[in-house]
């Protein structure tokens, strides 16, 4: 039986201006899930439920086999959490934080932490208030990575980082891939990072799961076509997510590329001039636009 990094079933949660109904989200152990969605889509809420910080009105949550929030203490020994709205203690040094985390978690690897300090170009004796945004983000990630947790839950790990810092962070995250017992859930506006590193894509919008699929199949299923239509013809075809037409030329986006959409285009009398694979960013925009 496959073990899950986390398993959320039938989740209901209600806030004054936001609700999630019957959310089902699970990640098999050893995989990476990328959580995609606009601000306010429910990504942070989902993550907080996984961390036991918020209790849903209905449903079950299990993280690394532990029931949440009842067994959150045991679970949190093996979860590494970092979010971009999380801060460390300004008046203390990075080394103080490392010692504090070390005193809590037996698996904290001092040698690896020192190594990360060097790679992230951070100084242990520096006070947190003296760090730039990018350095702060890297510091938080260092504290989490040095424990080699079984599950990494990262809320916007690369947001606001300069390209070099982002590359450093992605490099370290990629190291987690080596271990088939370790899993990652990360949400990011950097769809590039999600596209590269994720095994699964979860797409949230307004509290609903628009898509939950393995990345390769998901990216394969979306395609953009530039077509030529017979004169006087209106571009209209089932399975299209969006159609933009000017005269005899039309740009058609579909999410059913895997289901003989190209043949249907031909059958409808359209001539395919170009076909392009879409990046996750383009898919993101097209997908959100269509549900508005």
């Amino acid at each position, binding site marked *: 039986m496959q073990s899950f990094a986390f398993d959320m079933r039938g989740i209901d949660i209600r806030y004054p201006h936001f609700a999630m109904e019957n959310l089902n989200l699970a990640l098999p152990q050893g995989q990476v899930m990328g959580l995609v969605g606009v601000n306010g889509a429910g990504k942070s809420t989902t993550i907080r439920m996984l961390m036991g910080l918020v209790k849903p009105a209905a449903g079950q949550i299990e993280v690394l086999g532990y029931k949440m929030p009842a067994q959150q203490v045991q679970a949190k020994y093996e979860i590494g959490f970092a979010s971009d709205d999380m*801060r460390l203690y300004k008046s203390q040094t990075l080394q103080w934080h490392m010692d504090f985390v070390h005193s809590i978690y037996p698996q904290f690897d001092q040698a690896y932490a020192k190594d990360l300090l060097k790679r992230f170009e951070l100084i242990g004796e520096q006070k947190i208030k003296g760090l730039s945004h990018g350095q702060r983000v890297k510091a938080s990630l260092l504290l989490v990575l040095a424990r080699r947790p079984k599950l990494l839950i990262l809320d916007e790990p690369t947001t606001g980082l300069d390209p070099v810092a982002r590359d450093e962070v992605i490099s370290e995250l990629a190291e987690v891939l080596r271990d088939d017992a370790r899993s990652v859930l990360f949400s990011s506006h950097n769809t590039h990072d999600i596209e590269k590193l994720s095994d699964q894509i979860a797409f949230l919008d307004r509290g609903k799961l628009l898509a939950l699929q393995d990345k390769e199949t998901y990216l394969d299923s979306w395609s953009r076509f530039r077509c030529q239509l017979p004169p006087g013809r209106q571009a209209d075809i089932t399975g299209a997510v969006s159609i933009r037409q000017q005269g005899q030329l039309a740009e058609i986006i579909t999410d059913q590329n895997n289901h003989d959409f190209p043949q249907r285009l031909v059958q409808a009398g359209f001539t395919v001039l170009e076909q392009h694979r879409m990046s996750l960013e383009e898919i993101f925009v097209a997908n959100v636009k269509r549900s508005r």
Partner: protein
Amino acid sequence: MSNIFSNARMIKLLIGKDWQLVKKSLAAYLAGGVLVIGLMGMATPLLFNTGAILMITLMIVIGARSAIELVINEKKDQTLAFVLSLPVTPQDYAWAKLGANLLLYLVPWLLLVLGMLAVIVSSPVYNGVIPLVVLVSVFILLSYCCYLATALLTYSEGYTTAVMIITNLLLNGFIIWLLRMPAIHLTLEAPTASWNSTSLGLLTGGITLIIIVLLGTAALQQRKTSFL
């Protein structure tokens, strides 16, 4: 309800963390306290009164800074998410906060009160002022518990500051009321401290209220379901 023992290890570590955050400023305050106590030990009424006012201010400031630094700021500075990502439940966190704040205030408070009493007894200052000093100190401790409770239950800087201001005003009123009371007033300049039923009653009342506020806070905190 998770009790305080189920995650004692983490609660101790959290209290230790809070200690490390304020130890420098506490040391500075205590150093100031020593100076003020010295001032109070000089026999003239003027110096004693000046020292007394400074001491009252010092005790209030220690409490205010502690509550703001360790409670309100944790939410404002967004370190709350960091702490809650550690192996603790929100309830463990609440216990640790209450425990840390109490400990980190009671210790300096006790030191200052004992310091004052020691100086009064060993110097020419009339021992008759002892009940007054003790009652005022207990009132200050009660005030601290009130705005600590406000901070822990509302996490609102606004409400907490309001409660601080109210208790300060009440403190002034309390001191004036005490000084006017014949039971206190007549024995102020006596060479020995005399506790009568009034002053003892006030003392017991004060301590009881403190316990009620603390227990009430602990109970209400456990019922919070989310901290973020």
